[in-house]
């Protein structure tokens, strides 16, 4: 049972996964049910569900979810659009790596939140600014991860193509890109999670809708149940997207999952 990297049946895995999710929920329910905690500090699960229901009925929950999803996906997609080709070049050519990687490492450590005033100054305070913050938060990490994925393509795979007569562009198109693809999709999945963590920060900027904005507003009125609702919704959407990526991975790269 405690064998290092041991095997676990599918059924046991999902039973444990369900227990892992249910246990904190049960603990939370009991804690609030016995009334030992003030509801302002810790609302009950029922309060939170109730809040989600009224939010859905009276407060346009779906619009908030929609606009937040749009901002996250737009910032993430924009960052992928630039990071994928750039990371490919950094991971393939040492010249580009020398030119750009130290610079990226430098910017990567700067806090995205600190860019808010600059982003407002440069882009303004409409949708572009929110997408911009998410872009800044995701892009610099993503470039480095893409470059690393590309560098992990075994040298033997590249050299075999060369000795079979492949040109430089054929090595990139026919070997490096297809070889790195599964790892790249994983990188996109992981960075999508990071993009979500920047949502609240992004919606600090003159927003009047969105899940992050709702959390900030609820904080002002000490609506703890709504803060809980917002956080849990973001978690649920993230989990859903993550599973979507995993499914896509299985469908797009069946050879990764076949065993003899």
């Amino acid at each position, binding site marked *: 049972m405690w064998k290092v990297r041991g095997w676990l049946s599918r059924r046991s895995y999902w039973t444990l996964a369900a227990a892992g999710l249910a246990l904190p929920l049960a603990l939370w329910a009991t804690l609030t049910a016995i009334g030992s905690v003030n509801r302002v500090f810790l609302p009950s699960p029922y309060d939170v569900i109730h809040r989600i229901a009224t939010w859905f009925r009276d407060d346009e929950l779906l619009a908030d979810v929609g606009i937040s999803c749009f901002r996250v996906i737009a910032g993430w997609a924009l960052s992928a659009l630039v990071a994928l080709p750039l990371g490919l070049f950094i991971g393939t050519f040492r010249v580009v790596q020398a030119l750009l990687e130290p610079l990226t490492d430098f910017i990567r450590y700067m806090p995205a939140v600190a860019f808010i005033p600059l982003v407002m100054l440069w882009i303004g305070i409409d949708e572009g600014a929110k997408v911009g913050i998410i872009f800044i938060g995701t892009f610099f990490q993503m470039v480095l991860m893409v470059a690393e994925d590309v560098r992990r393509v*075994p040298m*033997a*795979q590249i*050299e*075999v*193509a*060369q*000795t*079979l*007569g*492949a*040109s430089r562009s*054929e090595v990139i198109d*026919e*070997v490096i890109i*297809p*070889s790195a*693809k599964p790892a790249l999709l994983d990188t996109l999945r992981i960075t999508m999670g990071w993009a979500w963590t920047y949502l609240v920060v992004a919606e600090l900027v003159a927003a009047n809708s969105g899940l992050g904005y709702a959390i900030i507003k609820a904080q002002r009125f000490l609506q703890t149940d709504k803060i809980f609702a917002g956080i849990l919704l973001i978690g649920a959407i993230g989990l859903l997207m993550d599973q979507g990526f995993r499914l896509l991975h299985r469908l797009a*790269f069946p*050879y*990764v999952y*076949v*065993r*003899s």
Partner: protein
Amino acid sequence: MSAIRCREVSKLFRDGRARVLALENVSLEIGEGEFVTLVGASGCGKSTLLRLIAGLDELTTGEIEAGGAPVLSPGADRAMVFQNYSLYPWLTVMRNVKFARQLSAHTRDRTSVDVEAASGRAEALLGLMGLAQVARAYPSQLSGGMQQRVAIARALMTRPHILLMDEPFGALDAQTREVMHDLILHVCRLEGCTVVFVTHDVDEAIYLGDRVVLMAPRPGRIDSIHTVPLPLRRTLAMKHSAEFLDLRARILERIRETSGLRTDLELLEKLSKYASA
């Protein structure tokens, strides 16, 4: 005419401030259709020499010619088989073998007759290598021996004049290796290609080679060249013949002499006394 000609080849590696002379003044001629094996202690530059012939690394001084033309870069006339991790896991066995066919170097003046001939050749190579049953499988579904057979079939697909092999059976178990030896001898004779084969296994070097090139380290150089005194068609029984065993003993002795590594028996004795005390 010789298929490969190396003239006074040297290779200097620079690693920061350290300089390593991986090859010094290596001259070697390999005849058309010859099977030459390179052996030697680690660090003798046998893989380096192979990579220089392949055009994967640049030589520091000297000259290498393949098929009469100087080697400046990798080319389709010199296919290479690596020890492992060289198959494309996203392609089936059949598409791995056909990989080269899509490259522009092989599609420039291609007619529909060529295309048909090519798919016939892919099937023929798979059959020859005993891979017909697994043509649609992915590499990860195959054993190590089968994977190397795919790699060899892929290298032979474009009819290279020269086949370069860098310890291709190094990761296989002894039984599989024996089967692969007879297979590779058979296939290379059939294809008529010139083979340069790097190994650290002396038995393998003698069994496969028409000539065994023995290399020595620090700096990497050719120590001696031995013509194998066995008939062209090798059989397992020859591994017990006097000629085989004699050559084997001489080569092993020479590798030991040149490796610079010696088991210090005195030190071992002292250590074991110290441990028991």
